[in-house]
């Protein structure tokens, strides 16, 4: 059985549609980890060149924001669900998290951005499929035209 499932979530509403599938997997006893990958923030600088927030402060703020949000979502899923926030390139960080978590399946929403044929699978989904040994559960969100 699928034992460890990684569920990348981003700000698009479409990723909310995969939560019932995550719930289904959790109900089979799988450990589920929700992950959000944020971009590494820059220092916040005013037009006058004064730095009002450093990247690490901004990072802590984003981290706290997403931890709260993912924690709320995790609480709405029954079962062994935890969460993580990472910074950097989404594909690289999701793959790194998959490895660190020992994920055997990654739940991916496809085709939410573009009608370009190649993009249907989504760059994240494609990168996942390149990796031998990790299954990918692809889900096309119903609200996607």
């Amino acid at each position, binding site marked *: *059985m*699928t034992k460890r499932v990684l569920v990348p979530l981003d700000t698009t509403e479409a990723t909310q549609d995969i*939560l*019932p*599938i*995550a*719930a*289904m997997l959790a*109900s*089979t*006893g799988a450990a589920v980890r929700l992950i959000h990958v944020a971009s*590494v923030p820059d*220092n916040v600088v005013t037009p006058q*060149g004064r*730095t009002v927030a*450093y*990247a*690490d402060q901004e990072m802590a703020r984003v981290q706290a924001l997403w931890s709260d949000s993912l924690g*709320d*979502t995790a*609480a*709405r*899923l*029954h079962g062994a669900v935890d969460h993580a926030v990472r910074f*950097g390139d989404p594909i690289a960080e999701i793959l*790194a998290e998959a*490895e*660190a978590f020992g994920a055997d*399946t990654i739940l991916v929403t*496809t085709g939410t951005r573009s009608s370009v044929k190649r993009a*249907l*699978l989504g760059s994240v989904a*494609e990168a996942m*499929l*390149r*990796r*031998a*040994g*990790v*299954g*990918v*559960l*692809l*889900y*096309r969100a*119903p609200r996607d035209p």
Partner: protein
Amino acid sequence: MAVVPEYPAQHILVATDFSESAEAALGAAARYARALHARLHLLHVFSGEEVEVTRLLADAAGKAGPDVGVTVAATGGDPAEEILRYASRQPIDLIVVGTHGRTGVSRVLLGSVSERVVRGTRCPVLVVPAPRPSAPSSPAPSGVALDDEETEQPAPVRPCLVCATPSHDLICEPCRARIRGEALARKQREERAGRP
């Protein structure tokens, strides 16, 4: 706070061509069917004459295990079309496909059948990786321009250069993360020191 409803997966479709890749998909589909108390639909699409279909399908159905309800079906035609047709006529909630085990320089990530199934349905599709080959695949023919991304091979396990934990990478992920963090902190210190 509203509990997220579970996606109801009561009917799981797995198509088989009796290949090794299909075997892996069947195994995964059977495990899902057992865990979800779902019915497993085992479909074989044949091209031309195949005399042993019944026996092969029965064998495959047997592999699903005694506690999984299995419906078998066989039809002739284009595999992807027939899989999609079957999925639309039966109340299928989840389709399980193999990857056809393509590795190495192939630009094709999925087998053409799997890819068309993924593109052609609104059902969730579980793509099951082919079992890793026991022997490393043969090196790419010389004279072929190799794209790094396309030729990714599982790296051998060796000790991490920093902490000596066995890892597929020269430097293991926890060490890399630490190094990234240190670099970021250093950059921030330097920026702060140099601030006007």
